[in-house]
């Protein structure tokens, strides 16, 4: 890289992300562009992004155990706390950014019009939540452990237990949706969606770790899941004297 300060965001490492076409993930076959992506220097249109305030966040938005439950009830399933930091590629905290999550219930069933799995709905579980990261980029929400479930991909395909994450960052160029898996789940290495990611060390970053230090005794286990959004090229150079 030249000594000239580049503007914008560090380029996305396409060898780290799954390719558009991952043939073992059947749906990607007809939904993957075949023309190469057109590389574009980020402009103000990509370097800016929406800002969300605390005014949109309700008091139970980050509590999936209770945010759809009838008063006095709670969702079925092992109670869990999921937490971590959102940082950028320079290690800088991403504060006040919206984190949205959604997931299946403790039986592996989603509350969705197109869901067809025979497992039961939980009348007290909706399956979505959100929060804003704090000044340190830290987020936390409460939920129940989602179950694995079968899906129509191969003859006997099962998704590992997972929670979907949607992250904004500060710029539209940072927009990211991904999935969090649970350490020790034997279905992780069998999943074509997971295995669309070409590198084992990249997959490993999506596996939350059991965090006994954060578990609430006699209440809930905790899982630690840190996320990294694209970093600004300029920030990297501005920070260089601190690191080197």
């Amino acid at each position, binding site marked *: *890289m030249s000594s000239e300060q580049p503007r*914008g965001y560090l380029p*996305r490492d396409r060898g*780290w*992300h*799954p390719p558009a076409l*991952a043939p073992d*993930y*059947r*749906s990607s*076959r*007809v*939904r*993957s*562009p*075949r023309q190469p*992506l*057109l*590389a*574009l220097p*980020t*402009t*103000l*249109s990509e370097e*800016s*992004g*929406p*800002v969300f305030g605390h005014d*949109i966040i*309700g008091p139970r938005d980050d509590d999936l155990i209770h*945010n*759809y439950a009838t008063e006095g009830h709670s969702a079925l399933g092992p109670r869990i706390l999921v937490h971590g930091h959102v940082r950028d*590629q*320079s*290690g800088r905290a991403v504060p006040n950014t919206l984190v949205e*999550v*959604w997931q299946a219930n403790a039986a592996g069933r*989603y509350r*969705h019009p*197109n869901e067809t799995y025979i497992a039961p709905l939980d009348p007290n579980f*909706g*399956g*979505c*939540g*959100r929060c804003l990261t704090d000044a340190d980029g830290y987020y936390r929400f409460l939920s129940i452990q989602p179950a694995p479930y079968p899906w129509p991909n191969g003859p006997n395909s099962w998704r590992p237990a997972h929670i*979907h994450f*949607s992250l904004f960052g*500060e*710029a*539209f160029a940072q927009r*990211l*949706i*991904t999935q969090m898996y649970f350490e020790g789940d034997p279905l992780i290495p069998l999943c074509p969606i997971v295995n669309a*990611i070409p590198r084992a060390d990249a997959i490993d*970053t999506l596996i939350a770790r059991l965090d006994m230090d954060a578990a609430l005794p006699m209440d809930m286990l905790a899982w630690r899941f840190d996320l*990294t959004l*694209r*970093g600004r090229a300029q920030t*990297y150079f501005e920070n260089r004297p601190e690191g*080197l």
Partner: protein
Amino acid sequence: MTDNDIRHESPSQTAGPYVHIGCLPNWSGIAGIYAEDPGSRLVNADTRGERVSIAGRIFDGDGAPVLDAVIEIWQADAAGLYPSPVETRGVADPNFAGWGRIATAFDSGEFRIDTIRPGRVPYPDGRLQAPHINCWIVARGINVGLQTRVYFADEVAANAEDPVLALIEPRERVDTLLAQADGEGGFRFDIRLQGERETVFFDI
């Protein structure tokens, strides 16, 4: 720069077929958690600028409409200003959100964006870009959200000097980013994920 100086971005995974639960819960039938779905209102009565509606569908490589996608848009206000802390040229219209989130209909695949025509925004070298709307598309089968842009076919002069459209080869692919007037006051913008007339997607 070495690999050790920067971390890897978290790898993307598909939003899956049930993305609506987390992104548009009310729309998908989960009422009572969020007062309203995020991104469901771009404009209000006081928003400045020309109202435009953009409708379309997303097609897969077999020509079938995608019935489970979510599109997010991000655009400047009528004066070309973004409601963002990185906007240094002025203060954007407080009555315009700039960001919207729209699902394709479960039955027809049709989406509709009710917004305003954006103003022009500079390219890094100072040239003005033509009015455009950034789009980010996620769905089952899309491993990394797809970035594209909507331009307006009636902005002939601005489009002709747009530095982003100028990068597109072969030139006939420029048309895949042009929303066309539908003859009823709105615009039509279909997105083709694969195959003939595949939409131009960007690596930004």
